[in-house]
Structures are given as C-alpha cells and as structure tokens.
C-alpha cells in the first residue's frame, strides 16, 4: 500500500499494461475469462484515480504526486510524471471511460484477446499523455496511443476500415511530425525536455537572440504553428477534421467511445498544457486565427452533422462541433491571459472537454446499440422506434439533450461558461459561434426524430428483425455516464472547483 501511495501515478499508468500481460497468458478461447479480467483490471485504475482525486489538494500550486526517474540520459530526458487539476480531470475521464468501453465490448467475439489487450494499451497511452511532465515522454505516449487505435479500427471496424484507419494514422502521424521536429528543436536548444524547465527557459529567451540563423520570433512562430497543427488535427479543428468522420464511422463502438471520449481531448489538452504556456505571446498574437478555426469548426461541424444520413457520422460531426467550443475558449483565453473572462472561458473549455467525453462516449455507445440490432446506421431506414424500445429511447433522448446543451445537464454548464468568457474577449467570433449552437439543436433533434419518432419503420416491428430493447449490460454502461451528466448539470462545483483553481494557477 505504501508503494502504491508513493507511486500512485505510475501504478495507474502501468496497471493496464500489467493486465494486458496477464491476458496474454490466458488461452485465446477463454473468452469469458479474458473479458472479465480486462474489465476488472480496468476498474483498478479507476479506483486509484478516485483515490487520487480525493487526495489531491486543489489549492496547491504546481504539480502533485510527481515522480521522476532516469530514462534517457543521453538526450536529457527523464521519466517525469505529475498531475495538476487539469490533468487530474482528464485522468479521471480516461479511467472512467475505459471500463465502460470494455464493458461495451462484451459483445465482441472475434479475437477477444488482442482486442482487450489493445484497449488496455490504449488506456496506458492516453493516461501517459495526461500525466507527462517531460516533453519527450509526452510525445512518446502521444504516439503510442495511435497504434492500438489504428489496429482497433483496422481489425474490428466496419466495411471501409482500411481506408479510414490508414487515414487516421497518416493524418495524425503527419500532424505530429511538426510537433516532433519542434520538440527536437527545443531539446537541442536547451538540453532538457523537462516541461517546467523548458517553459522557463524558452520564455526567458531574449527577443533579439538568433536561432538557426533566424530570429527568435520567427522560430517561435513556426514552432507554435507546428504544435498547433499537431493538436488541431487531433482535436480536430476545421479544416483538419476530415479523418474523424471516417475513423468514427468505421471504428467499433467501444473504439469510437474512447476516440471521441478521450483521444480528441488529447489535442485540446495539448493546447492547454503546451501551447499556451510555451507560446503565450504567439498564442495571443494568433488568437484570432485560432478563434476563426474554432468558429468554423463549430459552424461546419453543426452543418455537417445536420446533413448526414448516417447516424454515426452525425454524432461524429457533432464532436467537431463540440470540440470547437473547447478551442474557442482556449483562443479567448490566449488573447487575454489572466483576466477573469479568460479564466471563465478556460474553465468552460476544460469542463466542456470532460462533458463532451461523457456525452460523446454515451452517444456513440447508443449508436452502437442500435447498430448492433439493426445492422444499419442509415437514418432513413430507422424511424419511429420509440414504442419498440422505450428504455433505449429515453436514454437516447437524455444523452442527446446533454449534448444539445439543455440546462440542468452538463453540456449547458460548460458551453455557457465558454460563451460567457469569450464573448467579452472575442465578441464577433462568439456571436458567429451562436449560429453553430443553433444548428446543434437542429441536428440533435433531427437525429432523435429520425430514429425514435415519425412513422414507424415496420421492418423492425415484427419477425426476425424485431427490435429488442436495451439490455442490462448496456444500461450498466450508460448509467455512470448519465449519473455524471446529471450531477455536473445540477452541481458542477465539485469538479469546477478543481479546474478553476488549476486554471487560475496556470495562467
């Protein structure tokens, strides 16, 4: 116990690997054993992160639970992890969604062993990004996360999976190329990859210094954009978003849950953890451009979503729309660092990350539930299903409302805060974003209508195609999400307090 409490982060981080290794030695035909091992072992990091949350002292500045080990001395990189309020929230989100995703995957029967192992590796990759305090370690986990996701889509995805998975991989790797190069530049310049150290040195660089024969401001601007593009692709921000609908559409349900729930947050987290601290001046300078991209993401995401006839693509585009708000908040904060408005916008952005994680994971799961029964995602082939599946219908409406931003549910809180914060700083963009907000309502309602209401598609009412309602396992998956959606909607302070303190101390 003592070991765990002093090595809490590394335990959370590497427990999934341990579990994966255990699964490796379970014979492949013991499907039940593998499923339960995966599920139970993914509950351990969740439990530990709850412990982490409880023992976290929100009022203390800086990082907590820090651990630092020698890793790659030759290039001055150490294995340095730690959490602050921001990363803590994300860690909690990750450890929460992973068991749910695994539970959601209990219907997978094809090659369960590698599937579960990949999920656990994916969890490690994501957690690592959120915990890393060393730029190189950050990058390591950033890239590691890609691999399991690639194979999950490529192996367990639907018809067009090859194209989608390769696109996902190449987009993200191509995006991280700039990041990689910029990280190397930093490492070469300062002979360290420690995040705090780097932030200090990089910002202390005299403005008239010359790097690689170029002025500091040029280099910083280029490096800034290298970072931004890498994260923007991940978020994804318009116009780098095209991989996302494909990846989501083809991914297995649980893969989509984590993809939307956590992987997209990695990009936003990158903005908050790296871009803003490392490039305060550039961020402020280019805040307008970022805000423009964010608004475009909001509007195009919404319109794109509205135009879909595929249920899953609809939800996928909605992610672009929602993540746009996160970026809008970040852009606003970048423009006016330190003001109250900025802090509110940031709080909203971070909370929006958490909320979107909950609702998007839920939405994708629900799409998966209906897809599994009907084997179609085509909205035109569904319709009027509410009488057939009342429980499912209720849950879908509930989750959709969270996504839509209905007050008393969590989405409202965060989006309101983002808009409230950024309106004072970027009024025009925020006003434009309202168009997107409007459309959000439109596409969500369209989705609900086409699935649940309207004329009943008789095909699903009788015979072998008769639709069955959501089962207990699926309800168990949804229950924690719904509870949190409601709790945050009604009483957001428990989490906002942590976020707010973190944001105030960070910026």
């Amino acid at each position, binding site marked *: 116990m003592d070991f765990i409490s002093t090595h809490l982060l590394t335990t959370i981080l590497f427990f999934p690997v341990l579990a994966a290794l255990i699964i490796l030695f379970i014979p492949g035909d013991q499907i039940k054993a593998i499923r339960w091992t995966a599920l139970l072992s993914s509950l351990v990091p969740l439990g530990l992160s709850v412990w982490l949350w409880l023992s976290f002292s929100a009022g203390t500045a800086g990082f907590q639970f820090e651990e630092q080990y020698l*890793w790659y001395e030759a290039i001055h990189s150490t294995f340095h992890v730690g959490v602050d309020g921001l990363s803590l929230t994300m860690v909690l989100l990750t450890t929460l969604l992973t068991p749910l995703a695994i539970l959601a995957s209990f219907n997978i029967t094809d090659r369960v062993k590698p599937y579960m192992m990949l999920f656990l590796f994916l969890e490690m990759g994501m957690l690592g990004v959120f915990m890393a305090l060393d730029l190189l370690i950050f990058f390591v986990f950033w890239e590691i996360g890609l691999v399991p996701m690639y194979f999950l889509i490529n192996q367990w995805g639907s018809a067009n999976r090859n194209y989608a998975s*390769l696109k996902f991989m190449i987009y993200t790797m191509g995006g991280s190329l700039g990041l990689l190069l910029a990280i190397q530049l930093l490492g070469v310049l300062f002979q360290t990859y420690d995040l705090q150290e780097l932030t200090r040195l990089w910002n202390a660089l005299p403005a008239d210094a010359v790097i690689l024969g170029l002025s500091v401001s040029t280099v910083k601007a280029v490096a800034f954009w290298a970072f931004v593009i890498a994260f923007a692709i991940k978020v994804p921000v318009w116009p780098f978003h095209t991989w996302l609908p494909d990846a989501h559409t083809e991914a297995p349900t649980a893969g989509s849950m984590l993809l939307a729930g956590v992987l997209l947050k990695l990009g936003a987290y990158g903005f908050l953890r790296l871009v803003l601290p490392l490039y305060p001046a550039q961020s402020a300078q280019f805040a307008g451009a970022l805000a423009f991209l964010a608004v475009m993401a909001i509007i195009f995401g919404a319109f794109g979503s509205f135009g879909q006839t595929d249920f899953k693509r609809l939800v996928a585009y909605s992610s672009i729309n929602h993540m746009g708000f996160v970026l809008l908040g970040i852009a606003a904060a970048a423009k006016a660092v330190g003001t109250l408005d900025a802090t509110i916008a940031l709080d909203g952005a971070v909370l929006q990350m958490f909320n979107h994680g909950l609702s998007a994971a839920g939405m994708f799961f629900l799409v998966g539930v209906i897809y599994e029964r009907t084997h179609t995602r085509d909205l035109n082939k569904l319709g009027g299903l509410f009488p057939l599946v009342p429980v499912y219908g209720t849950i879908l409406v509930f989750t959709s409302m969270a996504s839509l931003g209905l007050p008393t549910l969590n989405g409202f809180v965060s989006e309101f805060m983002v808009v409230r914060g950024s309106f004072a700083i970027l009024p025009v963009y925020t006003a434009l974003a309202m168009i997107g907000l409007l459309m959000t309502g439109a596409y969500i309602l369209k989705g609900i209508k086409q699935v649940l209401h309207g004329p009943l598609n008789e095909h699903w009412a009788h015979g072998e195609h008769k639709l069955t309602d959501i089962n207990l396992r699926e309800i168990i998956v949804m229950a924690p999400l719904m509870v949190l959606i409601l709790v945050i909607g009604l009483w957001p302070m428990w989490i906002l307090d942590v976020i707010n303190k973190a944001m105030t101390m960070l910026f």
Partner: protein
Amino acid sequence: MQFPILSVIVFTPLVAALIIFLMNGERKNEIRVTALAAAVFALALSAWVYFSYDQSLAGYQLIEKYDWLPVLGISYHVGVDGMSTPLVLLTGLVMFTGVLISWGIDDRPREFFAFLFLLAGGVFGVFVALDLFMLFFFYEIAVFPMYLLIAIWGWKQTREYAAMKLTLYLFLGSVFALVGALAMYWQVGLNTGIYTFDMLAMEQVGAMAGMVTIFGYSIPFQVFWFLPVFLGFAILGGIFPFHNWSPDGHVAAPTAVSMFHAGVLMKLGAFAALRVGIMLLPEGAHYWQWVILGLATVNVVYGAFIAMIQKDLKYIIGFSSVSHMGLVVLGFATLTREGMVGAGLQMFSHGVMTALFFSAVGMVYDRAHTRQLAELGGMSKPLPWVAVAFIIGGLVSMGMPGFSGFVAEFPIFMGVWKTQWVVAIIASISIVITAAYILIAVRRAFFGELPAQFEGHIHPISVLDKVALVTLCAVMIALGVFPGLMAPLVELGVQNVLRLLGGA
C-alpha cells in the same frame, strides 16, 4: 591472465565452421545441433561482453594484443568500446536467431552453416578489431561467404545476379578503402616515425597531417583520402548512390542470410566507415560533412519512397533498410553527440528489426511460396505469431515510441537539428512515408481474406521459430522502454569519437 573472451567470440564461429565442415554431411540433425550449440555459446559470450563492459572506465576494454607481423606493425589487436559492444551483442543475437530460423534448410546444411559461421566470424572480427589490417582481413572474410550463401541457397530467380552484384559492389568499396588505409599507414609513419596499423596509435592527433599533391594541387591528406575510405565502407552500409546491391541482395538471399545481411553486414559498413573514416580522418570528416549529410538524406527519403512503391514484401524491407541505414550515416555525418548516439543505437535497433522482418517474411514465404503483396493476405490467421512479430517490427521501423526505433531515431534528428535544420525537416518526411508503407504491407500481407489456394496449406511455425521471434521482439521492446540499457554505453563510445573530432 585474463580470459581472452573476445578472441573466443571471434573464433567460436570459425572453429564451429571448421568442425561442421568435417562432419558427415548426411547427418543433418547433428550438424544443426552443433550449429545451435555454437550459436548459443557465442550469444552467451557476447552478452557477457556486453554486461562486463565497465562503464565507469570507458575507453577500449577487454583488450588483447598479439604480434602478427611485427615488422610492418600488424598485430592481432582486439578490444571493444561503447560503439562496438552493442554490435557484438547484435551479432550474437542474429547468429542465434539465424540458426533457429534456418533449421529447415535441407540442401547441404553442412555447407550452409559452415559458410554462415564463417560470415559470423568475420563480422565479430571486424567489430572487435583495433588493428586496421585485421579489420580488413575480417571484413573480407565477412563478404565472400555472402556470395555463396546467396547464390546457392537463395531465391532461384535472382540469386546469381544479386549475389554477384553484391559481392562486386562490396569488394569494390573495400579495396578502395584499403588503398586509403595503406596511404594512411605511410602517412602515419612519415609523421610519427611509427609504422603501425594499430588504430589506437593512428588515432593520435596529427598522425594524419600532411598534404597530397594531385594534378598539381596540394590537398590536405585527410581531405583527399576521406571520401574513398568513408564511401568505400559506406557502400556496405548502403549509402546512396551505391545502395543498389542491397535490396537485390536482400531479396535473393535465404532468410538467415538476409537477417545477417541487413541485420549485421550493413552495420559492418557503417561501423567501419566510422572507425576508419571518421575516427582516423577527422579533418576529412569535417570537410566532407555536407556531402555525406546530403547523400544520407537522399538515402533516407529516397529509400522510403522507393519502398512505398514496391510490390514484393522483401523489396519493401530491403529499401526500408536503405532508408534506415541512411539515418545511421546521417547520424554520423552530424558529428554531434546526439546524432552519433542515435546512430549507434540505430545500428543495433535496425539490426534486430530487420532480422525480425526477414525472419517473418521468410516464414511466410516458406509456406506461401510468394512474397507478392497482391497474392498474399490473411496470413495472421494461420500465422498469428508471425503477424505480431511483423507488426512489432513495423512499429520499430516507423519510429514508434516505446520501441527501439524511436529511441534511436530521435537523437539522430536532434543531431541533425544541431547541424542543419533543413535536413531534419526533409528527412522527417520519411517517417510518415515509412508509416504508410509499413501499414499497407502489414494489412495486405497479414489481414484481409486468406486466398483460397492457401487454405489448409499454411502449417504453423515451429517452437524454434517462435523462440527466435520472441527473442528479437523482446530486445526491441526492452531497448525502447529502457533506453538506459544501451544509450550510456554508446555515449561512451561517442565521446571518444568526439574527442578525435576536436571536442565538438
């Protein structure tokens, strides 16, 4: 007296080759077991060397020196430093796994293993040589068995052409380097009065000073001789535009030989280019740095592009080797600490990786009798181990963090940043291209539908094969997760190089 471990390592394969040659050619299993025993012994010794290298002392260790031809200053002089120790381990690994993979060779296994071990002995000899003559001696020993191994046991369609091409290229390179080495000998004698092939003595600053007069122009000695020496060796490292032999050779060679070829032999070239080219002619290295940097960049990017358009699984890996070995040379050419540490690690990492790749491809080919991507598919179902191994190799190849490739490539790029950032940006393109072709190859060969003609014809791999695959994978992951296992060692080697380069 200290146990002469390095000599034992060098002579284990040679003696084993001799013993195998004297065995009855019909008793194939005995031959195989003998080969395996020798390989295990060599692996154990090389691991021992690796772990007994005292990092607190640095420098050259486990030195043995005996007179060979004292009149000319030729001695049998062996020792290892931080650069060569990992490569000795690598050779041990490849030898061990190579024997396991070759268990199924049924046509004259006696000759096969004997030649293979001759090759291995030559490779060990080069890695531990501290005498220039000895280095050449073993270098050539390592080259010629390749010809026979490829020509006799290779892929029927191209083996004769490829084997000859390979041998001639390598021989050409090495003899040009040899001329340079002889010139260096006389120059050292002229400057210091000591006529010796001892590289430790030749390393002395100023030993290579002097001028060469050619066509009436007076050129500093080191500048004149650097290119022939460096490029002569680098041919074996697959440097552009002399890389052409390499993919052909890979494709034609039998599995174990491909493993040796890409895994170890190409390192031999890079290693010798470093030892003789850069370490003995540092001024020349400074002078020609940009040329080498440029060539290596072409290697990296061009190799990746060509790999992308290949249809044959082995050609893909062959060209990817060209690309990756380009990174090694690129690392050397930076003449920086980071770049060279990375290059040293890349040599090891790439060696293990390609050994793994070629063994996996060999297993597929042995069963499907084709390597064309268009004809393969779904191999992960009958051969899950092979698929996983290939994927892990692919991840290493892509430079995915957590695997040894990343640990090696990252510092190389840092070094390039220090030297010329434009090159870093250009070379980095290869990372994405690599990801693309590896993923496509993995998907087309191992996933999708298993073609009907293979249904039921793909028999599973043996336990020995599995041992080989797991060993190689484990090494790559271990190094990727814990770079500290090897990086400090390489760094010690690099420090010596940098000292010779003038403390850069």
